[in-house]
């Protein structure tokens, strides 16, 4: 059912456009966008989302855009109604800052670990959880609390996405993913938390070339893969070409 689709084109942008079109993303949806700053940020997919035109979006991401590209460009284009993030304010978050001060964008600030855990809960079928983070602070105001084992906890609910846009290092021919260093960050969690997950990868390797012990995101969470390698373009379907010419990732 959720067999991974691979998208190609004469350019990476074309492939990304095809993936966004196939994802079923529409205005009003909640979009999970990977990355911690620019590490792991799926810039090609966010650019494709801008071209796609969906608006009134709720974006869940750790930050609220850097500089004028990627997520910042999506915000600048007026497509985002609300941002859910842990750390909007950065030295180069002028696009968000301007929209926020002008009252043109909503903001929900969530502690970073709670943001990750709420998405993990959504992916894992956990409806809500009692968490000690934020107890006694503004961010817990109005939330149910409970003392468990002598420690106060606040109830946090699962945070689900309609679509996740993430970056990974490599996919094999069936959609298993590995990441690179700290660019892994939110990608694996967001992939589990969205109804549809779109991934941009640095390269697609033959099925069998990834060590099954080292796969971080199993194929079941991956719906659409965009190959950013220079070799992208109309090629054979990697699922039908499972030769093992690449080393273990």
């Amino acid at each position, binding site marked *: 059912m959720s067999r991974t689709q691979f998208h190609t084109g004469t350019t990476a942008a074309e492939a990304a456009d095809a993936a966004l079109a196939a994802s079923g993303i529409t205005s009003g949806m909640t979009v999970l966008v990977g990355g911690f700053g620019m590490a792991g940020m799926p810039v090609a997919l966010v650019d494709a989302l801008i071209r796609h035109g969906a608006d009134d979006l709720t974006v869940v991401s750790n930050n609220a855009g850097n500089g004028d590209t990627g997520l910042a460009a999506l915000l600048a284009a007026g497509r985002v109604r609300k941002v859910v993030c842990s750390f909007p304010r950065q030295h180069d978050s002028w696009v968000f800052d301007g929209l926020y001060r002008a009252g043109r964008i909503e903001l929900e600030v969530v502690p970073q670990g709670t943001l990750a855990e709420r998405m993990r809960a959504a992916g*894992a*079928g*956990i409806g809500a959880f009692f968490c000690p983070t934020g107890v006694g602070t503004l961010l817990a105001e109005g939330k149910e609390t409970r003392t468990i084992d002598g420690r106060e906890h606040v109830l946090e609910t699962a945070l689900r996405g309609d679509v996740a846009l993430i970056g990974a290092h490599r996919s094999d021919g069936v959609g298993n993913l590995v990441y690179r260093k700290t660019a892994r960050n939110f990608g694996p969690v967001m992939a*589990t938390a969205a109804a549809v997950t779109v991934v941009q990868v640095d390269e697609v390797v033959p099925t069998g070339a990834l060590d099954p012990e080292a796969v971080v995101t*199993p*194929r079941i969470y991956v719906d659409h893969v965009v190959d950013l390698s220079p070799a992208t373009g109309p090629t054979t379907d990697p699922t039908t070409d499972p030769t093992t010419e690449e080393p273990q990732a």
Partner: protein
Amino acid sequence: MSTVTSTLEHLDRGPLSRDEMAAVVARDIPDGSFVNLGIGQPTSVAGHLRPEAGVVLHTENGMLGMGPEAHGEEVDPDLTNAGKVPVTEPPGAAYFHHADSFAMMRGGHLDVCVLGAFQVSANGDLANWHTGAPDAIPAVGGAMDLANGAKDVLVMMTLFAKDGSPKLVPACTYPLTGVGCVSRVYTEVALFDVSGPQVVVLETWGTSVEELAGRLDVPLHRA
């Protein structure tokens, strides 16, 4: 699951063998599905899946893309299915720990699971973990997780217990595994859809809907 527009009654033959039941279940699993096969009879469905259908097997003990049973030198005690039977690792497999494995299940990411049952009720309740007998040692394993997790829960069972009593019942008398969780019930004589407000007979083998209706305590409907 596929849509059935009218009930099919195979009156020119007898009931299904166990192997034929497994083949019917396999026939109904959509291509490309992610599937968990329970311990026991459901495991036999694997042998009837066409390789070109691209069905991907999950095993609760931490593997997606599980291969067929291992034989001879392939046997590796570190690589088993949920029934602790040695299996193989085809290309494209992935391993993960138990919390991640059940997150995959509980999170609704599996398309289909196939389970055995003591009883299924007309509204899709499942009883398959505990006879309720006073001296029975309860053991649930992953049955409740599977019953609540997969998008479609298919049950494979004989329609009648050894004492002749029906196992498709108005309400389960054995302790429940899950409430309203079963989509379809595959038996040797009939295939039932229990996902809706009424029990629909989709197919029969060696018997008719009318004959079945006389032997069961639940109202049956045609597709």
